[in-house]
């Protein structure tokens, strides 16, 4: 997959405070890229650099193969974490204004607006002021002004914070559709469940440094510990547990099941395959449950962040 955005050794300092330290990321085109990190890690600074709101002290950014230029902002759609609209301006007028600032002609902007307003079923709001709309309604308008100039790169900073569940779901589906249509999406968040669901690639930033990046599947493969979660039905669970303890590293665990089984996490040494384990277990007990433990992004996140603290 070709590369759409590349950030190369970018650093940014505010006085004595280092916001970004030599960070590089690569965003494949047509993918959804998750930019993760705790609050204050430097995510927003990186996003602002891509949006040319702030300039990096050093390092370069390549957009679609070219060094970042001023007119690139016209093909970026940005939904900042701190967002809002002019309260006393009419919905249609405001959307037209923002679209024109993104380089659309008035005519183009009107056409696009009509498409999106019909699609979101909000055409009758055109002459309403934002302050007359409910929060959820304003969120729809907010989303439309982010995407209506058909940007090639979409950047969402905490997109689901502040959105109610219905709108969050609506927007999630719209983002997936935009991706299908060829847009590249960058997601900045610390809500991991949405990352698992949507992102193809991630980068984890902590204390101004990139600590981890790559494809989600690769990262998970890298972080899995060859551990299996098993549920064993046996007449004598205590003896079985002792026997297993001699052979493997085990740990008590819990999951939902119908029977009162012996529930364990078993970590395999490198020379033992899952099949070996399974065939061994079959001789000892009835195997009701056998699953490889794959760390969630959340676990990896917490693990990496706390590791980098030390």
């Amino acid at each position, binding site marked *: 997959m070709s590369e759409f955005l590349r950030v190369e050794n970018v650093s940014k300092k505010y*006085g004595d405070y280092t916001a970004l330290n030599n960070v590089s990321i690569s965003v494949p085109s047509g993918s959804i890229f998750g930019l993760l990190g705790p609050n204050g890690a430097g995510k927003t600074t990186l996003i602002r650099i891509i*949006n040319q*709101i702030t300039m990096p002290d050093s390092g370069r950014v390549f957009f679609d193969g070219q060094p970042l230029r001023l007119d690139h*902002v*016209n093909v970026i759609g940005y939904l*900042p974490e*701190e*967002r809002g609209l002019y309260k006393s301006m009419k919905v249609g007028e405001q959307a037209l204004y*923002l679209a024109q*600032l993104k380089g659309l002609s008035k005519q183009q902007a009107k056409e696009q607006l009509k498409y999106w307003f019909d699609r979101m079923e909000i055409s009758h709001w055109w002459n309403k002021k934002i302050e007359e709309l409910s929060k959820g309604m304003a969120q729809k308008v907010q989303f439309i002004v982010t995407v209506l100039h058909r940007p090639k790169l979409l950047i969402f900073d905490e997109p689901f914070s502040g959105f109610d569940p219905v709108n969050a779901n609506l927007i999630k589906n719209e983002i997936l559709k935009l991706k299908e249509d060829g847009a590249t999406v960058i997601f900045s968040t610390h809500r991991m469940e949405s990352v698992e669901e949507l992102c193809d690639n991630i980068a984890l930033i902590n204390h101004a440094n990139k600590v981890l990046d790559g494809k989600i599947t690769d990262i998970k493969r890298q972080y899995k510990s060859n551990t299996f979660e098993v549920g064993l039905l046996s007449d004598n669970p205590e003896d079985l547990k002792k026997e297993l303890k001699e052979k493997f590293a085990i740990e008590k665990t819990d999951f939902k099941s119908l029977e009162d089984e012996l529930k364990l996490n078993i970590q395999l040494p490198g020379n033992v395959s899952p099949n070996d384990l399974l065939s061994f277990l079959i001789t000892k007990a009835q195997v009701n449950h056998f699953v490889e433990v794959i760390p969630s992004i959340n676990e990896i996140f917490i693990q990496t962040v706390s590791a980098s603290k030390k």
Partner: protein
Amino acid sequence: MKNLKLIIAREYNSRVRNKSFLIMTVLSPFIFAGLIVLVGYLSTLNRSGVRNIAVLDHSGLFENSFENTSKLEFTFLEALTLEEAKTIGQSGSYYGLLHIPEPTENFNFSNQPIEFFSDETPNVEIIQFLEKNLSNELTNRRLVINGVDLEKIKESKISVDIRLEDFKGEHTSKMSAWIKVIFGGVAGYLLMMFIIIYGNMVMRSVIEEKTNRIIEIIISSVKPYQLMMGKIIGNTLAGITQFAIWVILGGILMAVASSVFGMQLQPDVSANQEAAAMAESQMQTLIYEIMRLPLKTLIVSFFVYFIGGYFLYSSLYAAIGAAVDNEADTQQFMFPIIVPLMLGMYVGFFSLIDNPHGTVSVIFSHIPFTSPIVMLMRIPFGVAWWEILISMLILFLTFAGTVWVAAKIYRVGILMYGKKPTYKEFIKWIKY
């Protein structure tokens, strides 16, 4: 450039379409005119009423020296002692009591002075009037004693009216200085008001974008510098629109007023030819004097100084707006803005009346933070073109500097939330 135009248009429209702008623009000339009429009416109310003064003349010299005027009436109290007269004077029907004791020889009152009794502190004009009359009478009497023929003196009196003319040979009148002060003062004052009102609008508009949290969306499309300039220019245009409407409305109002008062003047013309002729010639001098003012220079300079001064100050207003989260926090930064404006205003007024081309006013008309006001006030008195040019040049150079500094503060400030900034931080931001 296209974005700048869009921003200017949005700012302009959101100002001009605002209801309070319409009301302010249309109503304030009427309110202003109404206030003038009201103040004029009230001060005539205050003046009306004849004041009655009791005179107790023990010298018997002044029987004929106090004639009733439109404002003062004199009642001579006969054959009373001072104590009795005081009781009458206190009874309330008199404004005051003038007591003239028996003089020593040669009309000398140094032993027993002439006195005036009243409840309230007497009006200075009245006292001066009394003193003048008394002094005239006594002087005349002394002249007679010294053998001077009063008739001869009257005959010899000649009044002189100096005609004012400048070295270019054009006539001026005594009114001219006042007209210049008024024209200059009004222009300077208007400029100051516009700077404060429209500077505040720029500031509020910046704060609005910050509190609405739309700012980051906008500056992901345009440069903060463009946004700031767009705001400043948009508001300038709104200000010029308002000013233009006021000029037009004021013109109409003036025309209406003069035609109304003109009709009232009509009967007077037949009744009192002389007074009417006087009024007419005064009116003519007034118009003549106004026409003689460097009106073109004044109008052109007004616009140039308006733009320069306004840009200078509103860039500061924009920087302040960007630095704070809400309007209440702006107070601490308002002081350094208001002080030079007020200083310009006061220096302007006082030095104008005293000496419009004195050192103080010349210096202040070149300091960019006061020059728009002070120079505008000086222009009616005639200022050399190169002096105006230098002052404008300094103003525009400074303005370029403040815009640069303000843009830096603005750029950082608009993305800062939840922190009350200090001057120290401003300097840090400029260095970023």
